[in-house]
């Protein structure tokens, strides 16, 4: 009886109809938070004593990195839930999380290298975090490619879930080993990665940006999952009904404007 809500969660139709309502406030909230957070960081946070104004890239770069990593775990957990309880919706969420995470990883790498040039003189440095982000990109790319290339959709779901789970074990191992490798090969020049304690006037906009990115990620994940639902449930009656009502509404709009 108590598991009813859990299995209701697994219904794509329920998800689609619920998110119709959620998106109405979630999407504008994400956009507003993002704009406010980044404007705050760019325009109103104090200048950094060591790096000058180029440090402001952190407001874009750091939350993207955090969400790229968290997104991988979300994808893996969705895959695990789908494998264990054999539900359709978690697999759709997993498949949707992959391109979003990959895009965020690319954003992290691009902004990181643009930050590196004015600050440390080079666009690319083989340090632990850079390598880790690059490997994360490959992990995401593997899942995206596997999902596309597999002949049957159910088999693709399960294969991607297995790959994501193995990757989850691998992510901390990779981070630890790359960190260790880097500690052995640290170059002579000491890099300034920023003071350990961050001033509140810089911390608050950063936290706001992190929150904004979380909301944004949720919105994107919901949008991609909705699209996946329409793709997979195309033959069900409620989706067909949805398509008809959408057409009827558009016709009504057109004739209404014609009047």
């Amino acid at each position: 009886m108590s598991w009813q809500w859990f299995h209701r969660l697994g219904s794509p139709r329920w998800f689609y109809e619920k998110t119709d309502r959620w998106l109405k406030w979630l999407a504008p909230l994400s956009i507003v938070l993002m704009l406010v957070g980044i404007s705050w960081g760019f325009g109103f946070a104090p200048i950094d004593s060591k790096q000058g104004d180029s440090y402001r890239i952190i407001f874009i770069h750091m939350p993207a990195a955090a969400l790229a990593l968290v997104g991988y775990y979300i994808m893996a957990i969705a895959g695990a839930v789908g494998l264990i309880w054999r539900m359709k919706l978690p697999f759709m969420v997993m498949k949707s999380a992959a391109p979003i995470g990959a895009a965020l990883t690319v954003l992290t790498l691009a902004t990181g290298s643009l930050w590196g040039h004015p600050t440390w003189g080079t666009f690319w440095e083989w340090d632990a975090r850079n390598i880790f982000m690059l490997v994360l990109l490959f992990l995401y790319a593997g899942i995206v490619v596997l999902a596309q290339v597999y002949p049957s959709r159910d088999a693709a779901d399960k294969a991607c879930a297995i790959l994501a789970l193995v990757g989850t074990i691998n992510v901390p191992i990779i981070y630890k080993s790359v960190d260790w490798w880097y500690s052995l090969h640290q170059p002579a020049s000491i890099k300034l990665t920023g003071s350990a304690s961050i001033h509140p006037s810089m911390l608050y906009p950063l936290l706001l940006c992190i929150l904004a990115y979380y909301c944004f990620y949720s919105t994107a994940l919901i949008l991609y999952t909705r699209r996946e639902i329409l793709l997979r449930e195309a033959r069900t009656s409620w989706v067909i009904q949805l398509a008809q009502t959408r057409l009827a509404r558009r016709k009504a709009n057109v004739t209404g404007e014609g009047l």
Partner: protein
Amino acid sequence: MPKPHTHPSLGVGFRAIIRRDLLSLWRNRSDIANPLVFFLISITLLPLGVDPSHKLLATIAPGMIWIMALLATLLSLDTLFRQDFDDGSLTQFILSPQPLYLTVLAKVIVHWLTTGLPLALIAPVLGVMLSLPVGGYWPLVLSLTIGTAIMSLIGALGAALTVCLRSSALVLTLIIMPLYLPILIIGANTVSSAVAGFSASQGLALLGAALALALLIMPVAAAGALRISSNH
């Protein structure tokens, strides 16, 4: 009175698969040479593309030999399950009462015996060609022996996931590369730190632990992936 139906013991099934794979590889002996030839050729290309001074080569020798061993293993992984998939024996393996874990383990052992172990044994020759300093040879062989075993195990998962795809080479490489990364780091650093005078035992212990973990997890994951691949 009908006799009770007894299955062969696990050991018999295990050895049978090893014998079968070894036999089929022996019949295509040239396949065994492929990774070794790739290994040798690519190491030969290295001093031609880079300044062949002893000092430079000695610095990069541990990493290069490890990288080439990794690539050679990667090349040979496609054949791990492909023949069985094509001729239908994979389905038989899945349906048989023999646990799929043991079947995968047997095939991986044969793969390592015919790919990884020869690479590890021939590595000192390549070390000489790349001016590897004296302290590095024994750690090189040991780390490669354990490392190629781990790579065969991890590679089995990748091969199992991609066996049903037509052009699987690129996907296989993409999938497996992040999983190989920690092994490469630990293995290459074992050899370089041994060359620098430190003990190799720390790195070898880490590799041993990784092998134990891989022996536990990888065949299970590969078995699950095989079931998915053949059921598509």
